[in-house]
């Protein structure tokens, strides 16, 4: 039986080995892609095992090394991180299968580099999910930025170069310019950067400084795409669709909002934020982002661009949940990471499948295509409903918890924001399947069913079903997440 420490190190070693294996088998595509899928499955099993041991009450942490005296690289599993790790590693498997269909179907170049960077990105996501302190998290955060750059610029043309410049420019500027000083300042005043339930900043500085520090963190976490630092997300849509699917619906953006939730609960602490009101300014900015991005999404005719702005808006839900700093909104935020990931990856899979089968990227060209690609558009419809938040789909639960929390926090105006945003999401998402199924086809070159390759269609059906399944298993997840909002030392990992 392997010790949990070994499993923790394996959660980094497996994707790293995956990257090396892909590099070594680059000349034989079948072997290369088997390596990718296989590492996905073993990684997921590994994380699942850690999770079950955590649930059984085992608390561990793993010291990876020490940068400077006191500044340690440390992995400490906790409920929110394990949820994110399960999500990222779990969705890596269907995405790998999907990518095989997409990359081959579109004859993309440099496929080996693509799979290597993909594995490195997952490696970084695992590091972020399991990080035991801010510095470890920051390091893997930067690895994630740099490893996804070659994926975003995969096509290598002028457009990709421009998109890559915006991507890297915004993410590096915010992380070095805002997040790093926030972490150094935290270290300076608190003398530690460990994640401790209940936070480490209570009584360390004035409320005004706390508010400034919180703003530095939220804006510094550029991956959470809070306006005005959201531009990288639409710019990154030049990437091949599997990248957009996994990285820009799951790993990268969720790493961002995950970090927001993590610092809110483990660095600041909910009590401190509610007592000092340090997160109030950011609440307005998140609410603004939420509505503004929904409005922008409606104006976009390019399918991926519309989904990108929808992502910006949905991320703002989670940031808003964090800034409200109540138990219900934190749980709702954590739940939304999962629910939105499942729904949004389905939507991106659909967009990619449409591109592979029909070579269409604009929404206005999709009239009548529902009959040509029935499975794809059915999956799209289900996922869209989940994003909107209708039962019986997973997305309804996260919105429920977020809305309950706004009432707890006596911020009724945010309830109105949530309601308005749901209406807006109906307006920008539902017309797509409606056009596809209801309107007569303008492009009559397709008769009968013309779906993308099976390797692409099967994953998107699977994740669409996942959206439904999640509706019925939300309760255990809520119970799983609830302890992170409690200020108990029992949660602080193995440290006695």
């Amino acid at each position, binding site marked *: 039986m392997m010790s949990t420490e070994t499993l923790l190190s394996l959660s980094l070693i497996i994707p790293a080995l995956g990257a090396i294996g892909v590099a070594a088998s680059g000349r034989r595509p079948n072997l290369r892609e088997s390596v990718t899928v296989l590492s996905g499955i073993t990684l997921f099993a590994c994380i699942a095992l850690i999770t079950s041991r955590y649930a059984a009450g085992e608390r561990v942490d793993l010291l990876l090394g020490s*940068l*400077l005296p006191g500044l340690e690289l440390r992995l400490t599993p906790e409920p929110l991180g394990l949820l994110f790790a399960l999500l990222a590693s779990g969705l890596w498997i269907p995405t790998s299968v999907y990518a095989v269909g997409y990359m081959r179907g579109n004859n993309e170049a440099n496929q080996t580099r693509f799979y290597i960077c993909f594995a490195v990105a997952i490696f970084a996501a695992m590091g972020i999910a399991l990080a035991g302190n801010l510095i470890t998290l*920051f390091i893997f955060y*930067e690895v994630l930025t*740099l490893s996804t750059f070659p994926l975003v610029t995969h096509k290598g043309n002028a457009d990709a170069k421009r998109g890559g410049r915006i991507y890297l420019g915004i993410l590096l500027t915010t992380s070095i310019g805002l997040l*790093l*000083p926030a972490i*150094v300042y935290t270290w*300076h005043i608190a003398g530690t950067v460990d994640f401790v339930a209940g936070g480490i900043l209570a009584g360390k500085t004035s409320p005004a400084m706390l508010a400034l520090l919180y703003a530095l963190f939220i804006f510094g976490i550029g991956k959470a795409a809070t306006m005005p630092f959201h531009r990288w997300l639409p710019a990154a849509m030049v990437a091949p669709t599997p990248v957009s699917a996994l990285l820009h619906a799951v790993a990268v953006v969720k790493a961002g909002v995950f970090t927001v939730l993590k610092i809110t609960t483990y660095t600041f602490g909910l009590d401190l934020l509610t007592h000092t009101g340090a997160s109030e300014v950011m609440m307005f900015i998140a609410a603004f982002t939420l509505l503004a991005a929904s409005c922008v999404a409606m104006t976009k005719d390019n399918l991926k661009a519309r989904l990108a702005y929808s992502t910006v808006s949905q991320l703002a839900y989670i940031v808003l949940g964090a800034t409200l700093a109540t138990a219900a909104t934190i749980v709702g935020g954590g739940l939304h990471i999962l629910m939105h990931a499942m729904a949004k990856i389905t939507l991106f899979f659909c967009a990619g499948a449409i591109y592979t089968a029909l070579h269409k990227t604009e929404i206005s060209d999709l009239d009548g295509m529902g009959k040509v690609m029935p499975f794809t558009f059915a999956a799209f419809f289900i996922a869209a409903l989940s994003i909107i938040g209708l039962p019986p789909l997973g997305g309804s639960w996260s919105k429920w918890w977020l809305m309950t929390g706004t009432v707890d926090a006596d911020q009724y105006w945010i309830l109105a924001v949530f309601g308005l945003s749901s209406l807006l999401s109906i307006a920008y998402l539902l017309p797509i399947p409606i056009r596809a199924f209801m309107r007569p086809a303008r492009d009559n070159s397709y008769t009968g069913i013309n779906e993308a390759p099976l390797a692409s269609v099967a994953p998107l059906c699977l994740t669409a079903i996942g959206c439904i399944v999640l509706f019925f298993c939300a309760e255990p997840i809520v119970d799983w997440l609830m302890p992170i909002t409690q200020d108990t030392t029992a949660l602080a990992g193995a440290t006695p």
Partner: protein
Amino acid sequence: MSFINQHLPALIILLPLLAAPICLLLRRGWLVAMPVCVLLLLLTILLLMRVMDAGVISYELGGWEPPFGIEYRIDAANALVALLIGLISAVVMIFAKRSVESELSTDRYSLFYSLWLLCITGLLGICITGDAFNVFVFLEISSLSGYGLIALGKGRGASLAALRYLIMGTLGGTFLLIGIGFLYAATGTLNMADITARLPQAANQRTVIAAMAFCFTGIGIKLAAFPLHQWLPEAYARAPSAITAWMASTATKVAAYALMRFVFTIMAAGGVAAAAVTQIGVPLAVGGMLIGSAIAIYQTELKKLLAWSSVAQIGYILLGIALASEAGLRAALLHMLNHGLIKGALFLALGCMIYRLCKEGGEIKLSQLAGISKRMPWTTAAFVAGGLSLIGVPLTAGFISKWALLEAALAANAAWLVVAILISSLMAVIYIWKIVEVAYFAEPAEDSATVTEAPASMLIPAWLLIAGNLYLGINSTFASDVAQRGAEALLAGVGT
């Protein structure tokens, strides 16, 4: 062994000093210099080990007791700098063989290597001597041989650059000599420890203040502290590639060390010098950081680009010194080591490209790098890794220095310095990424089809330094321990 241990400080000076004429006499350059450099590396490692064990080592040259004879006095601060010189000399010497063969004419080899050994002697001498006048002597040895080395570069520009450096350097040396003369006039001794003890009783404090000003300015020129940096970009750009890499990593670091020694040890009494260096040094350091980086962005000639980046990096080191605190000196010492490794690696990688791309040696323009990543993947990867370290991305040495420096700035309650450091880092992103984009995204020129990867004897040294960067980025506890001890040793006399 005990003989070596006992006479370690003298051996470090005598070895290269005696090897230099042997180079000329035997008409063998590299064959003599290479083993000498390896021995020097071993000796400097041994020296650092002994200092970490035993604390301060004092060695009486020729058995004459100080203050009558010359004393070599080594603590953690100068042992660290000596190790840097030993390390960089050995690594760059491996690189030099092929590089020098392509850039110099055969009849100059032995001259070149003997000058280089003299220059190494001079720098090591400045490091380990405990006698103020001896500092001047070794400074002149290193400067005079340095002018010669730069003049040996290709093209007429080299002689002109050497002449400009000669004029500035002579001014600097003279200023230092005047400063030391004033100190002698005020105290009647040249031994550093003795000067420290007698300064408070000096009859004429105005002489002491004048001495301080002369020493600052003199060392400031050798350090290339803004605004005394004009000689540096031209000198680095025109020197042979190996010399550029070696000088950029060592010469300015030694000057920074000399500045520390004069300010904090020799003129420690009452902390007057420390207060003055804060008032004058901080603005100059910030000026160098921002203006150096800004000018680097607009350079198209790559050696000059890196040279201007050096001006900015010297600003970081000067900032650490100017903060005049333990944290600041620790950051400065760490950055001296780290920047030595970073710039060494970058200039070596650039040297590899020059070796393949510029048959005539010398200048290399940004446009010549178009698509180089396909022709020289390992060299380009080394350059990118060095560039990331220069930016200060986590897991590289550059991040550790930046962290230490930010910590020191916060400890001094200087938030605006934090902003300045971060802005300068972000400018580094721009000038490094400008190169990366050309190297990876631009189409290679037609005539570069025959360009292949650099020879192993040049590539391996570059990667050795990169490995050092990564190692120090992951585990800096020992380096930080040495730097901490160095900072304590330097500050031991201040305020007493």
